[in-house]
């Protein structure tokens, strides 16, 4: 299964990819669209990705986790328009014991946020929009182009 999807993420599907009789610990992470950012009310948002590189980087990160810890990893990121409460990203990690499952799960989400070329555009309750940019003052840069 690919890393990017434009369909709703189902955590059960990821669990099925990693579960096995010898893996007694399963750790999961879900990143869900929040209703506020920097004090502003978020109406919805849109994720775009550099598809081929996001797929390659997502697979590389999962592979790194599986070589550092004795675990199996499934990870998915959604693209397109998402509403508050929708899952944007999901990670499922299964291993024999909880320590490696927790550590690998944390590794995957942190590396994903740092390295995978995906961009978030927020639309606020007042209709204005901004690019989320962790390097910018205030964490966002207003959208200047034509509204889509």
């Amino acid at each position, binding site marked *: 299964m690919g890393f990017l999807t434009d369909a709703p993420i189902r955590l059960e599907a990821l669990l099925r990819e990693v579960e096995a009789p010898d893996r007694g610990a399963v750790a999961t992470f879900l990143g869900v669209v929040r209703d506020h950012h920097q004090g502003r009310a978020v109406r919805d948002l849109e994720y775009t990705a550099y598809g081929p*590189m996001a797929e390659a980087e997502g697979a590389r990160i999962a592979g790194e986790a599986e070589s550092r810890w004795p675990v199996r990893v499934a990870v998915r*990121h959604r693209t397109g328009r998402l509403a508050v409460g929708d899952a944007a*990203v999901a990670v499922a990690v299964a291993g024999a014991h909880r320590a490696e499952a927790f550590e690998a799960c944390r590794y995957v989400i942190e590396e994903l*946020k740092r390295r995978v*070329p995906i*961009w978030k555009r927020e639309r606020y309750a007042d209709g204005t929009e901004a690019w989320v940019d*962790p390097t910018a003052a205030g964490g966002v840069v207003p959208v200047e182009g034509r509204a889509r």
Partner: protein
Amino acid sequence: MTQAAIPVQVHLFARYAELLGHERVDLQLAPGTTVGGVVSRLRAMPGGDRLPARLLVARNLEQVGDEATVSAGDEIALLPPMSGG
């Protein structure tokens, strides 16, 4: 005799596509051009002066530095600060 120019695709995303008004730019480059040289060409385009001083660039789906050279058919991408997850 001058060597033939090499064709290179440059992909722009999110805010950078907005600044330059394009999601893709096709360039003809002199052989031996570096990633830094590609970025200079983009900075010279309308809106390109507003690109930040430091840029993340990928060549064929992997991040590279300014000194990396570009070959015919390479896919270059300018990556705004990532905000997935």
